[in-house]
């Protein structure tokens, strides 16, 4: 698979030249392959949100470069808008960004800015509504009469309608009830499977991350701590805990058993896998 996104020595400093100067992202480099599902985790203030906002050109890095399909995104600053269409970004609590009279018009906002034809926009609105699991009857409603969870789906649909090659989701499940969270996660997974595009998923819920990602990028005070498969990352239970991160419960149990001398693997992510491992050692 080819590399779709490459980040080289990316650094971002807030309030440069004042006593309040703070380095939010410190010399980060990594590469994401086409079609990968990458999760970015880290506790509050670790620089996750700043990092992802640099990937679609909303913030200009203090130093370092971002390459999208081998092209430097800031090579032509006037054309940065084109990058924003290709690297779609769903912000934290995106429901506040709705503004149009109807849901359909709001979802079409991004696609319209791209200068697509009416019929193409229509198609995209319909397919993206389907992706986020809303019924067609919603399209004619005002976005302001929807519930919180529905608003969030509309906001996500608005970004999906731009058909981005990379979709960045900044804590999309924050503040949703467990049912809504499950539903949204499975929809994101389905979307990923169908569209085969690249997804960057920012979260601090380890349980969510463990199940759906190909690779996990762990951030701690502006640095990358790990960038590896979930199994390998979660095998580092103690270290993650020191960074203020909680690993999934089942992984925690298995890591402890392994530390106590039982022959089970570290970094077990699902209950099924744990049962399997436990049965093998019980049979012995």
């Amino acid at each position, binding site marked *: 698979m080819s590399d779709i996104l490459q980040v080289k020595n990316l650094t971002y400093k807030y309030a440069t030249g004042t006593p309040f100067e703070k380095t939010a992202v410190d010399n980060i480099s990594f590469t994401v392959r086409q079609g990968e599902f990458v999760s970015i985790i880290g506790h509050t203030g670790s620089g996750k949100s700043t990092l992802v*906002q640099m990937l679609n050109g909303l913030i200009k890095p203090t130093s370092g470069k971002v390459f999208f399909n081998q092209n430097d995104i800031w090579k032509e600053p006037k054309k940065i*808008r084109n990058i924003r269409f290709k690297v*779609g970004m769903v*912000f934290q609590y*995106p429901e*506040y*960004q*709705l503004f149009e009279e109807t849901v359909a018009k709001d979802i079409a*906002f991004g696609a319209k800015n791209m200068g697509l034809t009416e019929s193409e926009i229509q198609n995209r609105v319909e397919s993206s509504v389907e992706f986020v699991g809303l019924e067609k009857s919603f399209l004619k409603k005002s976005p*302001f009469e929807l519930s919180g969870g529905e608003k969030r789906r509309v906001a996500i649909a608005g970004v999906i309608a731009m058909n981005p090659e990379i979709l960045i989701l900044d804590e999309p499940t924050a503040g949703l009830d467990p049912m809504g969270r499950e539903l949204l996660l499975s929809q994101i997974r389905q979307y990923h499977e169908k569209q085969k595009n690249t997804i960057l998923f920012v979260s601090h819920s380890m349980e969510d991350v463990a199940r759906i990602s190909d690779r996990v990028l762990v951030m701690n005070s502006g640095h990358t701590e790990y960038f590896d498969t979930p199994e390998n990352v979660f095998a580092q239970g103690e270290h993650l805990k020191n960074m203020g991160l909680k690993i999934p419960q089942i992984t925690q149990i298995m890591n402890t058993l392994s530390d106590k001398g039982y022959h089970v693997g570290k970094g077990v992510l699902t209950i099924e896998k744990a049962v399997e491992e436990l049965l093998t050692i019980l049979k012995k």
Partner: protein
Amino acid sequence: MIKDITLGQFFPTNSLIHKIDPRVKIILISVYIVFLFIAKNFGSLGFMTCITVILMIITKIPLKLYFKGLRPVLFILLFTSVLNVFYGSGEPIWQWGILKVTWNGIQTAVFVSVRIVVLIMISCILTYTTSPTDLTDALERIMKPLTVFKIQVHEIAMMMTIALRFVPTLLEETDKIMNAQKARGADMESGGIVKKLKAMIPVLIPLFVSSFNRAFDLAVAMECRCYRGGKGRTRMKVLKAGKIDVIAVIFSVIVLAGVIVCNVMFPQLTVK
């Protein structure tokens, strides 16, 4: 970035001026401003300018910040100076068609400009050294006599406090919404004024919606804590005038006497 806009800026330092009771401070500053207009010759104006600079130094706030406060009025300052230079009376020193520059014009221009600059500096001293809450508390107290005329002084003060409190919140939110719409390809930088205004709609609507929601939430939260307006409401921090305030008043009286003395002593320095 939009966050660079500062409003009602307060710079906490441990200076003596910060410690003056806000009520006393507001009244004294108002009196200073009145006397700035009573000063009618360069002698008394110069004296007021010196006093203002001394006060600015006492606040321990970098002088650079005071000059920043001048930026918004720079245009008015230039405009009035130019007008004054050309509209003076008396013998012209330089003439071109109907435009003439007179000695009197130049003097008036300098006098008026210095007056405006000092005016801004004095007001800056007040806003830089008093926290917004202190300011509204003091205003509430000063305006209390107006309740005789059925003016809801407490309500006005409360509205001011709330408005000031939410300025940074609103700025932050505007920034957030702008970013979200930019991520959907909204173009806010290019185009003419009409296009730019139109581009603001996707920012303004969500901002209004969330402001109304926030207002409702705040109202509910206040009612939950039994807020019912100003009547019978006591304060946690009661403003109390102390020794420093007496000193401030005495200092001011001396300064004001000085202005009057200068007015009388240097009639030859009056703008001719």
